[in-house]
């Protein structure tokens, strides 16, 4: 392996990818002409790259319109069909009704309805705080009667002046 320490070790890799500045590239080019170790390393990297490209192309030969295309088109057709069916509101409604999810939706709806009814009924039982508190009544009052309505629980103050 490379023993030359004239350049940082990744410079040859970057040089290969044309990722050095112009100045650095020129300097390294000159160095490569004089240093067999660095030249050998560059050559090794290039061979590796060619080897990998060759390996990939051997494993993945140019593909023809074969099974992949047919399988894809089949899937796409069914997808298109599904999309078209979704665009019709009537069809969508029918699918919803016919679908198994309908029962689940209905059960959820019924549960929500039941719970909200129970909640509202409980709410009615709660005695709300008074809207006003009468501490005293000024004036000449002969008698006072405090009444409460049955349903709404409104308080009515009835008094008789002297």
């Amino acid at each position, binding site marked *: *392996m490379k023993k030359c320490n004239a350049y940082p*070790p*990744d410079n040859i*890799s*970057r040089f290969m*990818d044309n*990722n050095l500045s112009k100045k650095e590239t020129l300097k390294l080019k000159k160095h490569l002409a004089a240093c067999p170790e660095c030249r050998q*390393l560059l050559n*090794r*990297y290039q*061979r*590796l*790259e*060619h*080897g*990998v*490209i*060759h*390996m*990939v*192309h*051997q*494993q*993945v030969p*140019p*593909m023809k*319109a074969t099974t*992949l*295309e047919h*399988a*894809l*088109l089949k*899937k*796409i*057709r069914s*997808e*298109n069909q599904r999309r078209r069916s979704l665009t019709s509101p009537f069809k969508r409604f029918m699918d919803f009704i016919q679908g198994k999810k309908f029962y689940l939706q209905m059960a959820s709806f019924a549960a929500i309805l039941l719970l909200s009814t129970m909640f509202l009924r409980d709410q009615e039982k709660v005695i709300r705080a008074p809207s006003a508190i009468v501490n005293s009544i000024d004036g000449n009052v002969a008698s006072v009667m405090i009444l409460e309505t049955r349903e709404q629980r409104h308080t009515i103050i009835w008094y008789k002046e002297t």
Partner: protein
Amino acid sequence: MTAKVTNIAARDEKELIKWLKQGRESAFRILVNQYQSRLMAIAWGITLDHEESLEIVQDVFLSVHKNITGFRGEAGLMTWMRKITVNHCLNWKRRWKRRFKWYHRPLTPEEPPGAWNVHGLQPESPESDYLNREQEKNLMDLVAALPEKIRTVFILKTVEGLSYEAISKLLNIKTGTVSSRLYHARKSLAVALEREDS
């Protein structure tokens, strides 16, 4: 109609995208024919598994079909599809499946003699030619042994010839990271091959 679409669309990506958005089957056929080999090369380079790569490429095309209406065309079809391919390859479910596969199967397939014969290499002597062939035989194992993150960068650079900037954008990493991963990949492969040679 199909033939007409084929000829025009092969030349003009924008038209192809337009037809894809219209849901034309012929346009999709062109897309598959034009890009499947390139996408397969990327997928295979990362996964090193033919069946899985086929599955990934199929998923990529389905994803394109599903999302083409939202595609604005700013980056180009190949850039978009390359990104989807890499994401699919690095998907954790697939990664685990692959690890399991590799664990249960030897990495070196039974290849006929000379199957790894090298093109494009210019040997300096018959001896170095012999060494290169030997190295090639082991290359797949060595590439497979690279960490996936490093292999992905190496394959995108080697197979697709992408710039450091393009890779950094694609993988959402810094260009410095791209550079160091490439160096790491090359160094590891070179050292491993040298070790096997000696």
